[in-house]
């Protein structure tokens, strides 16, 4: 029988069929971070239960750690306690812990793929809704709550109900200045933040096939902003090449054997999805959010929508409240809006290719006066690689702060926040009310658009002559969708 990629991985992990679409699924990888790890570990400790498979469990502090240069665990006091709790539990349970300053530390959804912990065909959980990021490698990866995390620690399994399956195909070639972030923001704006509730989304199409793994991670990262617990992409040669020589990926003949299996992980011909969407990539412009939901998106050369133009009364209410919070008016062009803060980082856009794309635009320019601009690399490994290429120098010379890896301003759980009323362009994934700090105003965008905003001091079209020259004169494509990237000299 024809099966989807999702079903093939699901079926391979059923320890017991519980009926009615429910199954007891084996969990191959369990990642713990400083915020969700300690309560789950405390829960099983309280019951006197051991961690069943510490060799499949990995811990890393990211959410509540300071990103200040030279930071230590205690730089943010509250985070220091969580860090200590996670570290102590991990040591007691023989769980591998990637500590601050060590290779391997970073945002959990950045370090997992880069260490080869995430492999095609595995099931992977983490107490974090952006765990769907990891589906970019062809894994069945999903976020869980503390109770589920505790269940998985004690049993290495979870009771799950099979979701509906949705497919989104991105077809065509990306225009200049358009990145994977723009594709996924465009999709959310088009179909809505609850469009994929109860679903798993499989992404495909020619634009995905041509995209690097880092670009695919960005796409899958925002699946949960469509309501989907899972996003995934069939593994292909790009995936295998990415995984080769990653620390936790198989080596030698084991790698060949694994690839043989991974090649069977695709959706068979003739499968019908509950919903099937096609996006013509040529229609997508650099995209930015104007409101307080990731579905509030417009092209950077567009105008802010008016509540009065919305046919649905719920939308009218939501749009009014969002505009009020954001300090914007319906009908105004979004470009030209003054910006106070810029944040380049998060599990969406903090990988080496993101930082390269940002550095290309930042090189030889300077952050506008009155703008605070941060670059927070996604992991220790990203940080070291970026420094080896001199990206940190480019950012510093341009007036950006170059910081230590962690979640930082995306979630503002580490004492760092955008001040009340300040307007931020952020490469992260959520623009909810108060997300980056009480009364902080967030515009989600790509790293390139974030730099354009930092340099000009306002929301700016990255394709405009002011911000885009380096793109046009670049000898090679510069965006994460492209397999080869380099900095023009």
């Amino acid at each position, binding site marked *: 029988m024809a099966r989807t990629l999702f079903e093939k991985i699901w079926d391979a992990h059923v320890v017991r069929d519980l009926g009615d679409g429910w199954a007891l699924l084996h969990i191959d990888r369990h990642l713990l971070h400083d*915020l969700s790890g300690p309560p789950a570990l405390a829960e099983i400790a309280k019951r006197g239960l051991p961690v069943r498979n510490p060799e499949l469990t990995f811990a890393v502090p990211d959410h509540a750690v300071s990103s200040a240069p030279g930071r230590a665990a205690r730089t943010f006091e509250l985070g220091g306690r969580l860090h200590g709790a996670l570290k102590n539990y991990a040591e007691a349970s023989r769980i591998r812990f990637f500590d601050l300053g*060590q290779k391997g530390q970073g945002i959990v959804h950045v370090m997992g793929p880069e260490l080869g912990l995430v492999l095609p065909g595995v099931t992977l959980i983490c107490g974090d809704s952006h765990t769907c990021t990891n589906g970019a490698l062809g894994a069945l990866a999903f976020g869980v*709550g503390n109770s589920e995390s505790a269940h998985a620690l004690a049993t290495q399994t979870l009771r799950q109900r099979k979701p509906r399956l949705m497919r989104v195909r991105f077809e065509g070639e990306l225009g200049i200045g358009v990145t994977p972030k723009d594709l996924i923001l465009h999709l959310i704006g088009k179909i809505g933040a609850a469009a994929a*509730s109860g679903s798993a989304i499989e992404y495909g199409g020619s634009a995905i096939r041509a995209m690097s793994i880092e670009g695919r991670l960005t796409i899958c990262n925002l699946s949960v902003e469509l309501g989907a617990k899972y996003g995934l992409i069939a593994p292909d040669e790009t995936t295998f090449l990415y995984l080769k020589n990653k620390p936790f990926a198989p080596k030698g003949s084991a790698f060949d054997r694994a690839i043989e299996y991974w090649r069977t992980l695709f959706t068979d011909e003739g499968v019908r999805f509950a919903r099937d969407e096609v996006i013509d990539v040529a229609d997508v412009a650099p995209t930015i959010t104007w409101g307080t939901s990731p579905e509030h998106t417009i092209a950077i050369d567009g105008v802010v929508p008016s509540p009065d133009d919305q046919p649905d009364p719920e939308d009218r209410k939501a749009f009014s409240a969002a505009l009020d919070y954001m300090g914007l008016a319906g009908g105004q062009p979004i470009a030209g809006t003054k910006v106070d803060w810029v944040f380049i980082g998060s599990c969406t856009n903090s990988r080496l290719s993101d930082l390269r794309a940002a550095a290309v635009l930042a090189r030889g320019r300077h952050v506008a006066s009155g703008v605070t601009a941060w670059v927070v690399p996604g992991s220790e490994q990203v940080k070291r690689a970026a420094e080896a290429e001199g990206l940190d120098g480019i950012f510093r010379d341009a007036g950006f702060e170059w910081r230590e890896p962690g979640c930082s301003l995306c979630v503002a759980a580490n004492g760092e926040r955008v001040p009340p009323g300040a307007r931020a362009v952020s490469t992260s994934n959520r623009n*909810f009310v108060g997300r980056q700090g*009480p009364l902080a105003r967030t515009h989600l965008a790509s790293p390139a658009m974030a730099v354009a905003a930092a340099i000009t001091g306002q929301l700016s079209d990255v394709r405009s002559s002011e911000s885009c020259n380096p793109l046009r004169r670049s000898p090679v494509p510069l965006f994460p969708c492209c397999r080869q990237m380099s900095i023009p000299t």
Partner: protein
Amino acid sequence: MIVRIERLTGNADLGHYAFEALRYLPDGSVNPDCVFNQPRFANAPILLAGRNFGCGSSREGAVTALMAMGVRCVIAPSFGDIFFANCFRNGVLPIVLDEASIARLADSTELAVDLEQQSISASGKAFHFSVDALQREGLLEGLDEIGVTLKGADEIAAWQSMDRVQRPWVWQTEKVEV
């Protein structure tokens, strides 16, 4: 936002901080215009909500914060998936109901929810709702999922032995140098 993630990093009273952006003014005083602060809704156990309620959040703190302010049942047109599952695991009943029916519930003076009958009564009118059988049973009986699963530990061990042979690469993690 139901509760700021910052509030989950300490031992804060989550009931106080649930919906803080709505319930309190910027200076920290109680916002009299917020529906949560109206005396007739004090400690109301049923929350009528809008679309995609609890979207995005995987934190059970969002559910415990609701519980701490007295909410035991949330009725909305749609929910975030992880939040929805977390509700059941913490004794909160999430009910999916169409927007028109929710508007009618909002117009009635008193609501009662009966999980066994899967019915909401609102000023004399009854509204049926569906709930997954396994999750309903879990709520009604307070099942200990970990305990139940551990009874099948042999089955898990057998699956793992088989998998170690079929996908050895998944299991070879211990001597890896980063």
